């Protein structure tokens, strides 16, 4: 609507505007309302504010302290192994507790490969779920579907592991893996022996476990895209898919990368379910169907049976390796986000 400003032209009216009838401006102290008297009696709260910011600052510093402490403990705990193997520990493939010969490479390899496998499987699925839920799902189905997706995140990982052993592994062994061997065998990634358990089973179970976090974060990001962007694409004659590609996913891509990184973080550290299906053999094999091992799994499996100090120290150094891998992957992901964002502008409108 247009704003019309009424200019008072009657003498009495202009007087009323300068000093509205019925209100006076008393000097402070004279005939105050209880509310005003109360408010004016309050002292400045600058001191409380300073206390508050100090407490908050302390909370924030705690995070740094915890990270630093963990790093310190990991390094000091693995002193023995660091002294014996040096940096080469991270690139050696030996794992022989009997002869006291240790190396972390098969575990690092297993963690990275199973996590990447999980992302390859989970990300398209998660983005698909998120797009369906935000853009195409009939209203009555939306809340139940979103709820069930998020429920997946609440299932304890040992339950995933059990389910994997009794359902997923037989399914992979009898149906999926033979098919993969037939179709993709030429690549060397899917060849006999086919045990059912192994790197691929670990990747699949991880994919199922990170699906909820990636899809619910992607859903948040997608619903934050302004409706005007969807309408802009539609008005140009976009079909629904084109509208989603041009008006939604394009605008949400940075947030989606963020969701993927969080999912990756979860996959790297996941222990129990992976331990139950990855096969637990510290060897590097080109075939994804072969047995593998991950950093978190070896710690969980062997910590209680580490019989001598060097064994224990090597396991702690594996923990250090996991810590470093997580930091490096996160840093790389930041760089990736930065690279994607650099060309892209700040969000307008």
């Amino acid at each position, binding site marked *: 609507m247009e704003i019309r400003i009424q200019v008072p032209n009657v003498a009495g009216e202009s007087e009323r505007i300068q000093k509205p009838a019925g209100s006076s401006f008393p000097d402070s102290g004279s005939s105050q309302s209880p509310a005003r008297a109360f408010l004016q009696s309050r002292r400045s709260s600058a001191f409380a504010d300073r206390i508050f910011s100090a407490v908050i600052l302390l909370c924030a510093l705690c995070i740094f302290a915890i990270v630093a402490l963990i790093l310190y403990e990991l390094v000091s705990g693995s002193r023995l192994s660091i002294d014996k193997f040096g940096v080469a520990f991270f690139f050696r493939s030996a794992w022989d507790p009997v002869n006291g010969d240790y190396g972390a490479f098969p575990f690092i390899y297993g963690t990275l490969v199973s996590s990447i496998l999980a992302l390859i499987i989970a990300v398209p699925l998660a983005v698909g779920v998120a797009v369906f839920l935000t853009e195409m799902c009939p209203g009555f189905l939306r809340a139940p579907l979103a709820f069930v997706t998020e429920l997946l995140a609440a299932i304890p990982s040992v339950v995933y592991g059990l389910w994997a052993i009794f359902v997923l592994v037989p399914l992979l062994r009898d149906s999926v893996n033979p098919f993969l061997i037939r179709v993709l065998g030429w690549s060397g990634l899917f060849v006999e022996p086919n045990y059912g358990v192994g790197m691929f089973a670990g990747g699949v179970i991880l994919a199922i476990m990170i699906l909820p976090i990636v899809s619910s974060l992607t859903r948040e990001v997608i619903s934050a895209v302004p409706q005007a962007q969807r309408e802009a*694409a539609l008005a*140009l004659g*976009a079909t629904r898919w084109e509208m989603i590609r041009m008006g939604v996913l394009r605008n949400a891509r940075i947030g989606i990368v963020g969701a993927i990184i969080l999912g990756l973080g979860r996959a790297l550290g996941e222990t129990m379910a992976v331990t139950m299906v990855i096969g637990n053999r510290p060897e590097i094999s080109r075939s994804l169907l072969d047995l593998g091992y991950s950093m978190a799994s070896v710690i969980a499996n062997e910590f209680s049976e580490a019989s001598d100090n060097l064994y224990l120290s090597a396991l702690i150094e594996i923990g250090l390796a996991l810590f470093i891998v997580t930091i490096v992957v996160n840093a790389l992901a930041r760089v990736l986000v930065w690279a994607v964002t650099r060309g892209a*502008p700040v969000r307008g409108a």
Partner: protein
Amino acid sequence: MGVGIEVSELNAWYGSNHTLQNINLRIPANHATALIGPSGCGKSTFVRCLNRMHETNPVGRVTGSVLIGQLDIYTQASPVEIRRRVGMVFQRPNPFPTMSIYDNVASGLRLNGYRNRVVLDEVVQRSLEQAALWEEVKDDLKKKSGASLSGGQQQRLCIARALAVDPEVMLMDEPASALDPVSTAKIEDLIFQLKSQYTIVIVTHNMQQAARVAENTGFFLNGRLVEFDATHKIFTNPRDKRTEDYITGRFG
């Protein structure tokens, strides 16, 4: 060249809310037609029915017929086909923020599979010139994003984006209401120049704007078209008492 629009017995609903009631209207080709009325009178819903955007709302529903040229858009074509022929500019500028200025303008053609770069370059330049934006952006067409422009420039970019697919009809839903007076004047100049080639339907809150740019004006009130006539008649000698009350500022 634009085509005329013939609307008959158009009704529209938002859920159970009957927002448009029995609208009958002929909009002439290659002229600007303004739609005025107070907030909530249904004028925006009306233009959204002309490119089938109303039905993208899950609770939106439409009955009646709309002929654009010879084509009945509700029975003879899909929404996607209609929207390629009927461009739209929205109240708030909505360029694609992750695309460059060039890509924004080219988006409509690319969407429909157009890949010829020479032609695209020409179309982008012509559209930006038509939208009076070319001189301001020609040096960083591919460097700057659509969102880096000022609000008025963004709206002209959106007009260029709509013009790039060479629509027969151009719908404008309060295209200047979020802009400052200088940008508003530019948009109005633009409408004035474009209306010889396109059929323009412009929704506006601003009655002076309607008087400045449009040959014909329709007055909406409570979901009904109260009066539709030549703009000078609406503003000097309206037939309906309610139109007169509105344009003289007695309500709204």
